[in-house]
């Protein structure tokens, strides 16, 4: 058997050997090897010392409070009295995993992009209505007001907005697709406890 101390990767064999957690055949080969290898013997003695020192750090004499369960159940009952949205919010983070909130965040982001998309779709109508009223307004309000400026600027505005709108829509759709892909690969609430 090669000396485990020669390689950093196999040094954990000594840990397992010390804990007697190796398969029987490896354990037997290690017994033979350790009898011949002074490096391993030294390392083993040091590891055994740590192992027994850690054994001294015993928590079995710890007196767990007799009302531990009662306090826990009281907290559970108290939580049941909380409003539904508070409980839902808590259960979102209950698994203690940093990514547990990701599905909700993705959904909110998708909803946000959808709202933005709707806003952009409605924008050209609003702008063209505005420009129409801008064209008509001087006529309706007063014949004295010069109509040159609004007539010239309104079509320009509409053209720019139309151009921008298409770009924005494309971008929003791309964002939406990307977020859907990200939302699909993220871990769901049920997966938060998965490895």
């Amino acid at each position: 058997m090669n000396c485990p101390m020669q390689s950093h990767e196999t040094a954990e064999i000594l840990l397992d050997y010390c804990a007697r957690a190796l398969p029987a055949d490896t354990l037997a080969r290690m017994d033979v090897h350790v009898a011949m290898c002074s490096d391993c013997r030294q390392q083993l003695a040091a590891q055994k010392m740590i192992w027994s020192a850690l054994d001294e750090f015993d928590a079995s004499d710890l007196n767990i409070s007799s009302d531990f369960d009662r306090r826990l159940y009281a907290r559970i009952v108290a939580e049941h009295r909380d409003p539904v949205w508070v409980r839902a919010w808590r259960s979102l983070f209950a698994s203690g995993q940093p990514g547990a909130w990701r599905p909700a965040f993705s959904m909110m982001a998708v909803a946000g992009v959808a709202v933005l998309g709707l806003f952009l779709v409605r924008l050209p109508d609003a702008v063209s209505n505005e420009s129409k009223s801008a064209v008509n307004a001087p006529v309706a309000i007063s014949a004295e007001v010069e109509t040159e400026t609004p007539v010239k600027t309104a079509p320009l505005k509409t053209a720019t907005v139309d151009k921008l709108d298409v770009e924005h829509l494309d971008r929003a759709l791309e964002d939406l697709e990307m977020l859907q892909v990200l939302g699909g690969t993220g871990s769901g609430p049920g997966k938060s406890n998965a490895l």
Partner: protein
Amino acid sequence: MSVAAAIEHDAQLMLRVRDGDTASFGLLLERHRVPVIHFVYRMIQNQAIAEELAQEVFLRIYRSRATYEPTAKFTTWLFRITTHLALNWIRDQKNERRQQSLDSEAPEGTAPLQVADAGPNVEQRMVTSARMDEIRRAIAELPDKQRAAVMMHKYEEMDYQQIAGVLSCSESAVKSLLFRAYESLRSKLAHLNRSVSE
């Protein structure tokens, strides 16, 4: 009960909790209460806070019962939550201490440990107590993840794969964490070995 049967039993109990059977939650609590409290206690070395954090662990288990899927060992999930809470507490304590700049002689997050009477006389008890303090300090000085890995490896007898699952890292990272942790403990506690042999 065999290990495999125990794993399946835990998952079955948790599935029953998911279906609204609170008695099964009581059984899970009965099975895992002590290991969780002991683990947190060894991590933070304060019994009152260990119990408080253990309560939070079981509360979180109960809260997320509706979304539970038995895709991993129950204990991996349980200790992932436990480790997460313990490491968060340690981090918060560090930040608090840094802000307050407390001049404390005791190591981080520690309270005097209750040591069982090991010897018949005062001198022996003092020696045991001092030795215990050394061990406790050496463990407390380990980086948080190394400490958690040692606690799981030594006391919970978890294998590398399960520790990796709890700490969300690779098995080789766990081996490296453990190797460095034991190396560090060996160098810090080497004098204990000498004093015993002398």
